C-alpha cells in the first residue's frame, strides 16, 4: 500500500489508482468532471489539477491532473497549493463562459455537479464579457430532455453511451467550443441505457423527461431504498416522491440509481428508470371495488365480465371477512393464487390464509418447472451465481437462449464490460493502468470471447464473437454437445452439422482455457432443456477445472425465484389447479388472486375454466388488468415504492425494499388486506388469529423465515421497525425539504402529523437521521458540498467499493444437490408446411407487465408484431410491415410482420407480454398458423 503525502498529511492509499480517486477516497474534496468511478480517466476537463513535488526539497512542484497521475509511493502532492486552486478556479471560469446562468429554471439545479464544483473552486466573479454560444436542442424521445447550451463538454455522455453501453446514435459532433453532443438527427435514443445520461451528465444537458412532467427539486423528494420490480436482476433504486400540492394524491416522481456494488453499481436500464410511472397511471386501483349485480351489456364485454362500483373499505373487508367466516365453518373452500411480482411477505400471507394445500403459484406447469429447474441447478455446489462484478470479470462467456438486453438488461451491460477483458489484459502487459480509459480503449484487437446461441440477440451482437440462431431445442442440443466435449466425449457433437460442431468445439476449448468462464441462460426461451444444458456445461467445466463455474440464470420476474420456493417441484401450477377444481363435487369456492393477471399466465380458455369454477373472485392488485373484469371484490394493493417487503433475485439474493411514500387512496400492502379481513371475522380461530395479529412487515418476514428455513436471511436483511440510531428513526426527507407546513395548506391550514411507518424504522418526514453515511437505509445520497449523485463515493468503502454499512449479500439457503446426468434429446416435432413454430422474443419496453403502463414507456411500445425469417417470408409471400393473422388454438392475433435474417427458419418470433399479445405469450413456444389478413381488415393497425 503506497503512502503519499497530501498537503503535509500522510495517507495510505490503494495501489493501482490515480491521485484523484485516492484523494476522494480519503475524503479530500477535489473537483472533477470527466472522470467517473466506473468509466475511469480521460483527462479532458483538466479540473482536478494538483501540484506534484519531485521530492521534499522541491518547493515549486508542477501542476498535474489528478485523474491522469498514478499514485506513487512516497509521492508528495498539494491540493491546496495556491497555483492549483487558481488553476481549478480558472477552469471553472472557462467552462462558465458558455454555461447559461439558468440554474433557477434548470432541472439539474440543486443536484448539479457543476454547481457543486463551481462552489468548491470558489469561482464567483464573472469576468467574461462576451456573448455565449447557443445550440439548437434535439428531440431525443420521451425519456430524455436535451438542453445543449448547458453543456460543458466533459464527454461523459458519449463515453457512457458509446464506450460503456455500446450505443452508436449519440456522438460528439463538430469541434472547438462548438462541439455538440447529439444525434445525427432528432429521434429517440436507441440504446436501452440512455437514462443513465441523466445521472452521468454533470449538469443539465440530459435530464429526465418523465420527471419533468411532475418536477420538484431533489431536496423536496422523499426517498427510501427500493428494488426495481421490472425484472429479476434486482437493481437497487432510490425512487423519489412528493405530495402533489394540489389536493391530489402524492406522486411518485422519478427513479434514480441506488448504488449496490454487487448488482447495479452505478447504472440502471431504461425500463427500470422510467417504468416507475405505472403507479401514477390512470389504470391504478386506489379504491376498494365490488361487482354490482347488474349484467354488463356491451360489445366489448365478455361473458362473466363484471361491472364494478366503489365500496367503502370497511364494507369490502367485511365482505371478505364473511367469506373467511364461511370457510372457517367449513361451508366454503378458499383457494389462493400467489404472484411472482409480489413480495415474499404477501405471498406468504396468502398461503397462511388459504393453507399450503390451497395455495397456487399462478404459473403454468411449464413456467413453474423452469423456475424449479433454475433452483435445482443453482443448488449444485459446482456452480456459483455470479455478482455483476463477477460477470464483468469473466474472460469467456457462453450465452444460451437469453436475449439479455431485453430480459436482464443490467446483466447485458455487465457482459459488455467483460468483452473488454482481453483489451485490459493487453493494457496490463503494456503497464497501462486500467483507469486510463482512453489509453486502454485505443488498444484494438478482438473482444474477449462471447458466444451467443439463441433466438435473438438485441444489444450484444457487436461484442459476440460467434452467434448461432436456432430454436431452443437445437440450442439445447448444442449446449449438450459442448458439455460433452468439455467432459471429453464428442458423441453429441458428431450429431451436429459440421459448422455447428466446429463452433461447439471452439466454444468448449475457449471455455476450458478461460480463467473465469461464465455461462448465462435463463427462463426466457421457456425451454427446460436449455437450462439443463446450461447446467451441464457449467458443471462439466467445474469437473474439469476443479473449481466452481459461474452460471447466471435469468428468471422472468422480480420475485420468481422467491415464489418458487413455496412449492415443491410439480406442485402449485395452474394445470393442477384446473384439475383440482374439476375433479370432484365441491363446496362453494372463493378464489383469492394476489397481484396476478391470470390472462398473462395461461390461454384464455384455461383461465376461463378456472375462474368459472369460482363463486367469488377476490383480487388484490395495483393496476386494472384483464383479471379485474372477472373479480367480484378488488382491493387496491400497494406498489413496490409504496410498501415494504422482500424479493429474491435471479441469483437467489434476498433484498428488502422500503416504502418510499405513503401512496394515495386506500392502498395498502396486500397482506394488510388479508390481516384486516381476518381481524374482522367475528369468531377468530387460532389460524386466523395469527394472521389478524400481524402488525408489521417484519412480523411476516420473521414468520416466513421461521416456516421456510430457505428464507432464514429475511431476519438479517434489515432491521425491524424498532431499530433506532441514537434514539432516532431514519428520515425519508432531507434536511432541506421545503413546504412542510404549506403543501397541504390549500385544503387545511392545520399541519397533519406525519404518517407513521409501522414497518420500517423510518419516518415519513424530515425528523431523524439524514446522513446516508450513518445507515444504508438512507437513500438521499447527499453530502455537504456534494449535492449530486456523485456524492455516493462518500458512502463507499473505497471508490467503487461496497456501500458503507451494507451487509450481505444474503443468499437464500438451499440444500446443496448435484444435478443429475440429464439426457437432452431432440424433442421438437418436424416442421410442417402449414404451421410455424412460435418462439418467445422480448422487448425492453412492452414485455414487462407493470412498466408497460408507465406513460413514457407506453408511448414507445411497438404495435403487435412478429419476426419472420427472410426465406419463410418469401415462401409465404410476407412483405415487411404487412399485417398478417396468427392463428393459435381457438385464438387469433393481427401482427405486423418484420422480416429478420436471424430468426430461425420455420419459426416466428412473437414478443412476449407485449400489450395486445398477452394472451398468446403463455403459449410460447408453440405452434401457430400464419394467414394473410382478409383485404377488408388490412386497412390499419390492429
Amino acid at each position, binding site marked *: 500500500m503506497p503512502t503519499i503525502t497530501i498537503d503535509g498529511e500522510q495517507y495510505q492509499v490503494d495501489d493501482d489508482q490515480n491521485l484523484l480517486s485516492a484523494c476522494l477516497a480519503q475524503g479530500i474534496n477535489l473537483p472533477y468532471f470527466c472522470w467517473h468511478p466506473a468509466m475511469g480517466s*480521460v*483527462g*479532458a*476537463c*483538466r*479540473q482536478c*489539477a494538483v501540484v506534484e513535488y519531485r521530492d521534499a526539497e522541491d518547493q515549486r512542484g*508542477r*501542476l*498535474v491532473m489528478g485523474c*491522469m497521475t498514478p499514485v506513487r509511493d512516497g509521492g508528495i502532492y498539494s491540493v491546496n497549493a495556491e497555483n492549483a486552486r487558481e*488553476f481549478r478556479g*480558472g*477552469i471553472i471560469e*472557462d*467552462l462558465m*463562459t*458558455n454555461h447559461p446562468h439558468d440554474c433557477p429554471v434548470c432541472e439539474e439545479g440543486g443536484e448539479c455537479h457543476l454547481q457543486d464544483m463551481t462552489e468548491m473552486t470558489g469561482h464567483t466573479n464573472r*469576468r*467574461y*464579457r*462576451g456573448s455565449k454560444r447557443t445550440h439548437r436542442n434535439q428531440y431525443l424521445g420521451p425519456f430524455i430532455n436535451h438542453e445543449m447550451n448547458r453543456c*460543458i*463538454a466533459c*464527454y461523459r455522455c458519449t463515453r457512457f453511451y458509446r464506450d460503456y453501453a455500446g450505443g452508436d446514435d449519440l456522438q*460528439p459532433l*463538430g*469541434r*472547438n*467550443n*462548438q*462541439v455538440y453532443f447529439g444525434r445525427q438527427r432528432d429521434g429517440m435514443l436507441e440504446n436501452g441505457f440512455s437514462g443513465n445520461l441523466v445521472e452521468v451528465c454533470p449538469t443539465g444537458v440530459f435530464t429526465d423527461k418523465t420527471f419533468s412532467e411532475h418536477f420538484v427539486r431533489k431536496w423536496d423528494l422523499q426517498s427510501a431504498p427500493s428494488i426495481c420490480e421490472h425484472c429479476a436482476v434486482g437493481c437497487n433504486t432510490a425512487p423519489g416522491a412528493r405530495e402533489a400540492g394540489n389536493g391530489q394524491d402524492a406522486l411518485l416522481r422519478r427513479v434514480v440509481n441506488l448504488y449496490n456494488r454487487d448488482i447495479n453499481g452505478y447504472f440502471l436500464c431504461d425500463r427500470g428508470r422510467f417504468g416507475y410511472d405505472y403507479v401514477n397511471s390512470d389504470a391504478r386501483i386506489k379504491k376498494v371495488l365490488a361487482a354490482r349485480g347488474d349484467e354488463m351489456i356491451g360489445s366489448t364485454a365478455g361473458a362473466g365480465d363484471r361491472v364494478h362500483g366503489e365500496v367503502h373499505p370497511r364494507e369490502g373487508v367485511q365482505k371478505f371477512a364473511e367469506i373467511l367466516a364461511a370457510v372457517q365453518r367449513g361451508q366454503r373452500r378458499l383457494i389462493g393464487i400467489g404472484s411472482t411480482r409480489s413480495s415474499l411477505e404477501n405471498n406468504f400471507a396468502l398461503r397462511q390464509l388459504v393453507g399450503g394445500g390451497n395455495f397456487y403459484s399462478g404459473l403454468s406447469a411449464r413456467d413453474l418447472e423452469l423456475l424449479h429447474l433454475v433452483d435445482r441447478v443453482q443448488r449444485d455446489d459446482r456452480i456459483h451465481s455470479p455478482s455483476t462484478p463477477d460477470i464483468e470479470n469473466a474472460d469467456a462467456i457462453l450465452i444460451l437462449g437469453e436475449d439479455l438486453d431485453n430480459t436482464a438488461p443490467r446483466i447485458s451491460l455487465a457482459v459488455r464490460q467483460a468483452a473488454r477483458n482481453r483489451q485490459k489484459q493487453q493494457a496490463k502487459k*503494456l*503497464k*497501462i493502468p486500467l483507469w*486510463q480509459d*482512453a*489509453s486502454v480503449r*485505443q*488498444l*484494438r*484487437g478482438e473482444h474477449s470471447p462471447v458466444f451467443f446461441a439463441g433466438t435473438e440477440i438485441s444489444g450484444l451482437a457487436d461484442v459476440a464473437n460467434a452467434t448461432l440462431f436456432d430454436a431452443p431445442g437445437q440450442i439445447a442440443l448444442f449446449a449438450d454437445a459442448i458439455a460433452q466435449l468439455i467432459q471429453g466425449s464428442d458423441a453429441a457433437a458428431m450429431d451436429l452439422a459440421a459448422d455447428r460442431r466446429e463452433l461447439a468445439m471452439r466454444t468448449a476449448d475457449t471455455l476450458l482455457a478461460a480463467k473465469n468462464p461464465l455461462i448465462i441462460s435463463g427462463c426466457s426461451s421457456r425451454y427446460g432443456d436449455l437450462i439443463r444444458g446450461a447446467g451441464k456445461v457449467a458443471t462439466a467445466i467445474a469437473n474439469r477445472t476443479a473449481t466452481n463455474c459461474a452460471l447466471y440464470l435469468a428468471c422472468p420476474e422480480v420475485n420468481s425465484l422467491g415464489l418458487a420456493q413455496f412449492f415443491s417441484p410439480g406442485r402449485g401450477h395452474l394445470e393442477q389447479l384446473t384439475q383440482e377444481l374439476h375433479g370432484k363435487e365441491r363446496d362453494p369456492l372463493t378464489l383469492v388472486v394476489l397481484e396476478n393477471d391470470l390472462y398473462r399466465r395461461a390461454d384464455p380458455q384455461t383461465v376461463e375454466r378456472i375462474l368459472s369454477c369460482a363463486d367469488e373472485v377476490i383480487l388484490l392488485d395495483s393496476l386494472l388488468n384483464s383479471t379485474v373484469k372477472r373479480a367480484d371484490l378488488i382491493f387496491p394493493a400497494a406498489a413496490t415504492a409504496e410498501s415494504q417487503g422482500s424479493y429474491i433475485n435471479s441469483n437467489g439474493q434476498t433484498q428488502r425494499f422500503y416504502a418510499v411514500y405513503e401512496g394515495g387512496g386506500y392502498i395498502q400492502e396486500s397482506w394488510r388486506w388479508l390481516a384486516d379481513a381476518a381481524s374482522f371475522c367475528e369468531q377468530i380461530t387460532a389460524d386466523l388469529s395469527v394472521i389478524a395479529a400481524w402488525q408489521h412487515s417484519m412480523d411476516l418476514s420473521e414468520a416466513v423465515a421461521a416456516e421456510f428455513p430457505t428464507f432464514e436471511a429475511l431476519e438479517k436483511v434489515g432491521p425491524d421497525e424498532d431499530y433506532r440510531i441514537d434514539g432516532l428513526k431514519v428520515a425519508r426527507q432531507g434536511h432541506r425539504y421545503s413546504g412542510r407546513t404549506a403543501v397541504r395548506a390549500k385544503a387545511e391550514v392545520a399541519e397533519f402529523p406525519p404518517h407513521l411507518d409501522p414497518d420500517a424504522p423510518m419516518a415519513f418526514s424530515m425528523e431523524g437521521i439524514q446522513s446516508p453515511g450513518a445507515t444504508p437505509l438512507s437513500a438521499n445520497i447527499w453530502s455537504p458540498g456534494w449535492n449530486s449523485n456523485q456524492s455516493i463515493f462518500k458512502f463507499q468503502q473505497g471508490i467503487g467499493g461496497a456501500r458503507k454499512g451494507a451487509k450481505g449479500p444474503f443468499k437464500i439457503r438451499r440444500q446443496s444437490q448435484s444435478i443429475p446426468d440429464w439426457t437432452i434429446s431432440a424433442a421438437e416435432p418436424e416442421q410442417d408446411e402449414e404451421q410455424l413454430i412460435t418462439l418467445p422474443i422480448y422487448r425492453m419496453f412492452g414485455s414487462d407487465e407493470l412498466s408497460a403502463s408507465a406513460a413514457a414507456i407506453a408511448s414507445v411500445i411497438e404495435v403487435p408484431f412478429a419476426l419472420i425469417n427472410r426465406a419463410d417470408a418469401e415462401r409465404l409471400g410476407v412483405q415487411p410491415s404487412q399485417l398478417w393473422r396468427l392463428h393459435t388454438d381457438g385464438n387469433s392475433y393481427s401482427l405486423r410482420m418484420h422480416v429478420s435474417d436471424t430468426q430461425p427458419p420455420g419459426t416466428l418470433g412473437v414478443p412476449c407480454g407485449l400489450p395486445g399479445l398477452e394472451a398468446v405469450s403463455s403459449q410460447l413456444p408453440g405452434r401457430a398458423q400464419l394467414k394473410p389478413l382478409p383485404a377488408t381488415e388490412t386497412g390499419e393497425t390492429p
Partner: protein
Amino acid sequence: MLTNPLTNPLTKNIRGPENVATDIARYEDNGGYRGWRKALQLAPEEIVKRVQDGGLRGRGGAGFNTGLKWSFVPRGEDSPSVKYVVCNADEMEPGTFKDRLLMERDPHLLIEGMAIAAYAIEARTAYIFIRGEYALAAARLELAIAEAKEAGLLGSNILGGDFSLEVHLHRSAGNYICGEETALLNALEGRRAIPRAKPPFPQVSGLWGKPTVVNNVETFCNVPHLIEMGADWYRGLGRGEDAGSKLFGVSGKVKNPGTWELPMGTPIREIIEEHAGGMQDGLKLKGFLPGGGSTDFLGPQHLDLPMDYDAISKAGSRMGTGTIIVLDDHTCPVGLVLNLTQFFARESCGWCTPCRDGLPWVVKILQRIENGEGLPEDLDLLREQAARMGPGNTFCALAPGAAEPIQSALKLFEQDFIDHITKGCCPYL
C-alpha cells in the same frame, strides 16, 4: 536557390521555380533511390542506428531524434507482425510551406525516405496523410507512387528481394490538430481527430493498435541521403549543434519571402537579411516568430542566434518548423496575435477545457482590444489565460503552442497593447 547536392541534399532536384522532378527517370538520374537501394543491403537495425547517429531530429516541430523514435518500435519474434509508417503531411502551421515544396517538386524523395523508414521498422504498409488543400502535391505523389511501383521500388518483392511495401495516400478532411500525430492516427482510422492518451505511444500501439512511426515530410526527406552518405557526412552538414540541413522559410514584409535549404545552425540574421533580402524599404523588424505561428516572439536582439533547436529554446522560443514570420514596425502586433489566435481557437479539437474554452475567450479579449474597447485588466486576463494553457496543463501541445505568441507578445509588445486600450483604437490604423 542553391543546388549543390552535397550541401543541399533536400532540394538538389528543385532547380529554379519551374523545375519539377516528378519524373522517376530524372529523379534516378540525379542519384534518386540510391539511398533506398543501399538501405535494402543493410540490416534494419543498422538503419535505425545510422539515423540515430546522424542526429536527425524531427522536422515537424518537436525536434525529437528520429532514429531514437524508430528504435522504440518492438522488434523480433514476439512483436506484432503488422506495423505502419505514416507520413504527417498535414502541413497547417501558420507561416509554414516547406513540406508543400518538397511534395510538389520532388515527391519521390519523400517516398524514398518513407520506404527506408518502413524497411527499418519492418512495416509493410505506409500512409501519407496529406492536407486536403494540397491537391497538386497529392496528384504528384499519387503519380510518383505508381511510378515507383512500376519500377519495382515499391510493391511486392521490391527489387526482387523479400521486402514488400505498399504506400497509400490519404487526403485529410482538414484540421490543424491532425498535425498532432495521435490525432492524425485517429483521423486516419476514420475517428474524430482528437489526440490520444499516451502511453501507449504510437511506436507501441498506433494505427489500428499496431506499432506505428509517424514522421514529418521533411524528416523522411532527410533519410535517403543520410543513409546514402552516412551519419558523419550528415552531421557535418550542420553549422552548429544540430545535424543536417533544413528548409527555412521567411514570410512577412521582407523583400524576398520564400523557403531555402540551409545548414542547421544558420544564423537568423543571415536567413532574413541575405536569403529573404531584408525588410521592405521603410520598414523595421519589430520581432519575429522563429518557427511558425505557435512559437514565442523573439526580438531584434535575437537575430544573431543560430537556427538550432536548443539555441532557440534557450532564448525562450522554439525552432518549430523553422519558418520565420517577421513582424515589422508598421503592422499591429495585436492584430497579428488576434489573427493567429482566431486560427488556433477555430482549430481546437474541443477535447480539453483550457484550449476549447480559453482560446475563444482570448479571441474575444483581443478583438475588443484591437477595436479599442479593451480594459486595462484585460492584459492580466490574457496573461492568466496564456499561463493556463501552459505545457502540461492541457491534453496536447496545441494550446501551449497557441499561448506562445500571446504570452510573448504581451512581454515584447506590451506598450502596443496599452496604447490600444488608452487610445481607444488601434494605433496602427
